[in-house]
């Protein structure tokens, strides 16, 4: 159950979603992925580590290099799942709650 929650935390981050999108079309090395971002290399490495731990990315040794490629099966599992929809409403309702806690009648 924890793992599942982590998957959605993983895709909640815009940089990590951008990484997934990059790798979706071709497998790439960490260096090639990092070259697409302004972010520092160690930050990109951290993102890659999280995505790998959640099994959204898989590593493949190719000679001396490690290539990252997307785990289509896991991605499909995420896409089919209801959680992003729930999170969308949860965020809206959190906003509503905060808004109304500070609500003062105008009149």
């Amino acid at each position, binding site marked *: 159950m924890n793992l599942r929650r982590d998957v959605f935390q993983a895709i909640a981050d815009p940089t990590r979603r*951008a990484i997934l999108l990059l790798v979706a079309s071709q497998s790439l090395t960490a260096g090639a992925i990092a070259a697409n971002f302004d972010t520092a290399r160690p930050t990109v490495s951290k993102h890659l580590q999280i995505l790998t731990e959640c099994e959204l990315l898989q590593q493949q040794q190719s000679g001396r290099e490690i290539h990252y490629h997307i785990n289509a099966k896991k991605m499909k599992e995420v896409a089919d799942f209801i959680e992003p929809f729930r999170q969308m409403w949860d965020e809206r309702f959190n906003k509503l*709650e905060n808004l109304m806690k500070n609500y003062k009648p105008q009149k």
Partner: protein
Amino acid sequence: MELKTKVNAEEGKHDLVITREFDLPLELLFKAFSEPELIEQWMGTKVLRFEGKKFGGWQFETSDPKGNVVFKADGVIHEFSTNKRIVRTFEMAGVPFGVQLEVGEFEAITDETSRLNMHVIFESVAQRDEQLKLPFKQGINWAHNRLEEIVSKLK
């Protein structure tokens, strides 16, 4: 952490139920659903029209920073019972999800807490499932937009 918002969508059915408990008195919860200025703030959309009464209509529209309309939805209100129930139709423009019937029930738990139960009925199972997948697709789209921004900076 306990999930405050629950979504129950049984497989093979053409409806879903969204339930949420709020640390708000019932009156304040209902108010958030009945005043356009408040709806705008928590829904993050522009409210072009909202008539909180039977036979009333509503229209939402969201634009991106460039002014392009990215979300448009409208419907009519079938029942508007203060602090109890809102029954309305909901139709999003430009998507093949058809029209939905939404039954929102509001109730007090204590003086300071309340519950919303929103039953959403779709025309078909397929339309419901497409709607459920939408936030994920949007997430991917946002990622794509961000990627485009990054790429355009490189040029």
